[in-house]
């Protein structure tokens, strides 16, 4: 049996799942690094922590672009027909918002770094060009924006998890299972 890499109407394929879970791990890492950086005084440890935060952020940015491209090339598993229409709309809106945040948050971080003349290096391998020149006002704007978006992302992620669990335990449909790599039992639909 050949491995189905692409999505089907019923289930996310392994590529889409890999994108999802790698980005989950990286986003959690970003929150941990950001909270650690907040507690550090100015010094090399802060420089390292922020450098790592930036490298991971740029990784998420690149993965989000690849993920959206992959999604565009694939069928998207259907929403469960048993759920009411408002839930479909809510799911659609929150998914668009989550994807947008995966792009906008790193972009704001990048702009913040440019505004303070702290260019972004991706793991010391490549240095990204500055998007804007040094500006304290621009830094404050993007910094506040970055922090606000982090809160929005946190709340949306919690809703996303809550919705997945609700589908699994209350609706008893396969919405959660179809994003889990070890689930094999419901692949008979195609």
């Amino acid at each position, binding site marked *: 049996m050949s491995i189905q890499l692409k999505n089907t109407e019923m289930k996310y394929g392994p590529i889409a799942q890999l994108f999802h879970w790698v980005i989950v791990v990286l986003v959690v890492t970003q929150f941990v690094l950001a909270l650690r950086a907040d507690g550090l005084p100015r010094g*090399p440890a802060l420089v390292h922590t922020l*450098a790592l935060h930036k490298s991971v952020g740029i990784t998420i940015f690149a993965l989000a672009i690849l993920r959206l491209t992959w999604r565009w090339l694939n069928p998207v598993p259907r929403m469960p027909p048993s759920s009411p229409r408002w839930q479909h709309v809510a799911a659609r809106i929150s998914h668009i918002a989550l994807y947008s945040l995966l792009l906008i948050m790193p972009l704001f971080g990048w702009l913040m770094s440019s505004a303070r003349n702290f260019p972004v*290096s991706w793991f010391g391998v490549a240095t990204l060009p500055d998007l804007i020149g040094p500006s304290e006002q621009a830094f404050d704007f993007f910094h506040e924006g970055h922090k606000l978006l982090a809160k929005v992302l946190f709340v949306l992620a919690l809703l996303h998890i809550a919705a997945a669990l609700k589908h699994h335990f209350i609706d008893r449909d396969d919405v959660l299972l179809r994003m889990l790599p070890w689930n094999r039992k419901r692949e008979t639909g195609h």
Partner: protein
Amino acid sequence: MSRSKSLLLLPAAFIASLALAATQWTMQPKQSELTFTAVQAGAPFQGKFDTFSADIRFDPNDIGNSRFEVKIDLASVNSSDGERDDTLRSSDLFAVNKWPTATYVAERFEHRGGTKFAAIGKLTLRGVTREVPIEFTFETNKSGAWLKGSGKLKRLDFGVGQGEWKDTESVANEVQVHYALLLTKS
């Protein structure tokens, strides 16, 4: 020798000393710049010194009598980030309270052909004096001359980076210095 005769010799001695000295130039501070490129966490960033002066005596045809003396007000460091500038001024880095000025004096020059020159001068920074070679071009025009070039140094040679700032992964040891000085004849 009578007093009047020796007085007569004074102008002659003065003229002789002028002939010996290479051209004296005056730096135009507004058009001149002194910048540096340092690497922080793998990413190069640029900064500059807003206040510095350069006493330049230089003649491309008389490098033997040429001399540079540059004084840099370290507190005028400007990396487009106030917090980083404060850190640079602090005791672990430039320690501007103790050593407010860095000085570069060059007296040995070498002609590399055309408008290209090199010099080995002595940089005094944070109480440490060490030789730092530089390369530059010297291009004259009607109104004056442009002196442009660069040099590189290791910050830890001068103790710029004490304690935790000795770490070269967060801030690389090598720092590049660039300068472009607009000079007019004094």
